[in-house]
């Protein structure tokens, strides 16, 4: 056969033994045509448009999954940031739109719908203020709605008024869902340099310059990368490790693109991007932490972690970029603590701390993600954490994000479980020293010189 037996068995091994899967197919839908002055009518039109365009998403994904034998774990929808298209509504309450977005998601059979979003990197306009004020209730009263707020960019600097506000919003969302460990916060991301075409939740939205409707794919497969490194053994040099990661990343990106294109073709929508991110799940063998340890660390979180992650993140990008011209989204390695069994375990053991995670965000594609913190963490401290990670993103011209859950009534060392893909993890200790005076100053951290690149 033109493809060798060895190659065939390698692929079969990746799919059947190493958890190669397509993490998500996400349909991006432009909701600008739904804009209007009556919020209830906008909400209804939003629901109708999503149902019309995404009606077959789950069915088609199921068929492609059956045909190719590679699981498509999640089917999702991302929409135009609500703060953008609801701006013409004569109301100070966007809640009806939240309910209709959630209803559409439920009836479509998808697990998340992203786009309860505002972009406020320079200033907070009226619509954005409304959206942000509505976040806690919108998340508390829905199951599938995901929210994000972009508070900074390399070009604009960091909006510290928005950062101060988001610390309070996160606390409020946690309080409203105290009975589920503050779970609303698992669907809320605060970004710096948010990307316009991210297919992963909770930060997905259909951004600037996107088409009416398109399909993107988010691949994954940390298990395949770990298996490849383990096959190399413990003594080969790091160049070889990087090469192997690159090769495996090429392969999984190709698989993802093929599946994504086929889904797009059957749905009759344009194919958008492949997000070649290594995204873990709590399932055994599906951990990014395991990959870092396979590179040669006793415990992820110890010395060498940031360097290993830098090698991994870059190798993933290289392989992916060779595999496709449609790379986009976040494209790198994700480090969500509760969603990664090994990271959660090391955090519980005290080997992985928040300060190390902050360093790691400077070399990977996401940020401080799915981190449970003590319920009594102050809003100003949460804002400080957001500002720190935003500064890393702003200065380094990359995306960073914060998704922290201040679990009401919980203290450092306790455990919180969210279930499903959101996983479980320890409550991580946060420094007790206050930054309230800095946060209360408000204003903006100005754009760095890196942003003045014309």
């Amino acid at each position, binding site marked *: 056969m*033109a493809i060798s037996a060895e*190659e*065939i068995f390698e*692929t079969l091994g990746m799919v059947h033994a190493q958890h190669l899967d397509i993490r998500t197919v996400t349909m991006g839908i432009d909701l600008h045509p739904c804009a209007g002055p009556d919020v209830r009518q906008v909400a209804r039109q939003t629901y109708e448009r999503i149902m019309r365009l995404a009606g077959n998403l789950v069915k088609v994904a199921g068929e492609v999954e*059956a045909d190719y034998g590679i699981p498509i774990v999640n089917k999702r929808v991302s929409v135009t940031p609500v703060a953008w298209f609801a701006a013409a509504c004569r109301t100070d309450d966007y809640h009806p739109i939240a309910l209709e977005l959630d209803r559409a998601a439920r009836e479509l059979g998808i697990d998340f719908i992203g786009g309860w979003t505002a972009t406020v990197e320079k200033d907070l306009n009226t619509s954005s203020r409304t959206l942000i004020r509505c976040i806690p209730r919108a998340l508390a009263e829905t199951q599938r709605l995901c929210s994000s707020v972009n508070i900074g960019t390399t070009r604009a600097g960091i909006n510290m008024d928005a950062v101060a506000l988001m610390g309070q919003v996160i606390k409020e969302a946690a309080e409203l869902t105290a009975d589920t460990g503050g779970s609303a916060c698992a669907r809320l991301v605060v970004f710096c340099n948010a990307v316009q075409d991210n297919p992963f939740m909770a930060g997905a939205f259909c951004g600037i310059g996107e088409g009416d409707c398109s399909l993107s794919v988010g691949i994954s497969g940390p298990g395949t990368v770990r298996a490849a490194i383990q096959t190399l053994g413990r003594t080969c040099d790091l160049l070889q490790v990087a090469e192997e990661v690159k090769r495996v990343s090429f392969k999984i990106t190709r698989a993802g693109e093929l599946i994504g294109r086929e889904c797009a073709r059957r749905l009759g929508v344009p194919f958008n991007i492949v997000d070649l991110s290594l995204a873990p799940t709590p399932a055994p063998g599906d951990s990014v932490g395991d990959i870092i340890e396979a590179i040669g660390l006793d415990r992820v979180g110890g010395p060498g972690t940031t360097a290993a992650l830098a090698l991994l993140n870059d190798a993933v990008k290289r392989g992916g970029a060779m595999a496709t011209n449609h790379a986009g989204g976040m494209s790198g390695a994700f480090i969500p603590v509760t969603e990664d069994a090994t990271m959660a375990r090391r955090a519980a053991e005290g080997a992985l701390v928040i300060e190390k995670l902050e360093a790691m965000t400077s070399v990977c594609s996401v940020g401080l993600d799915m981190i449970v913190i003590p319920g009594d963490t102050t809003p100003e401290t949460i804002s400080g954490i957001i500002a720190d990670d935003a500064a890393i993103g702003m200065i380094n011209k990359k995306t960073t994000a914060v998704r922290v859950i201040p679990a009401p009534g919980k203290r450092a060392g306790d455990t919180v479980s969210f279930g499903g893909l959101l996983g479980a993890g320890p409550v991580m200790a946060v420094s007790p020293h206050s930054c309230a005076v800095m946060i209360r100053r408000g204003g903006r951290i100005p754009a760095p010189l890196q942003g003045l690149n014309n």
Partner: protein
Amino acid sequence: MTTNKKQKATGVLASRARTLADAHRSQSSTRVVVAVIGRDRPGIMAGVTAIMAAHNANIVDVSQSIMSDLFTMLMLVEIDGLRGTFAAFKKELEAHGSREDLSILIQREDIFRAMHRV
């Protein structure tokens, strides 16, 4: 060899290479790879090919090897003329595998091409 004979030999070789390449290229036909792995004993191939025949699946290529006790077989199968659905075909093969203590894995061919060719 005279020039004429050389040219003729080259021509035959070129045309044979093209024929083989065409035979292995998917073109417009839909093909799947069926892998069968298990403990070697008589009747494995017969059992699987019987299911192929029953569903009118066209076997395009087969390769097999037996290492110690382990039997592995790869078949390239055209499914355009399948009698019934692909889902039913796949299900019957997998059920056969469960009954006979064989791993039977079915994967569309284009996945392998996409993953293993630059």
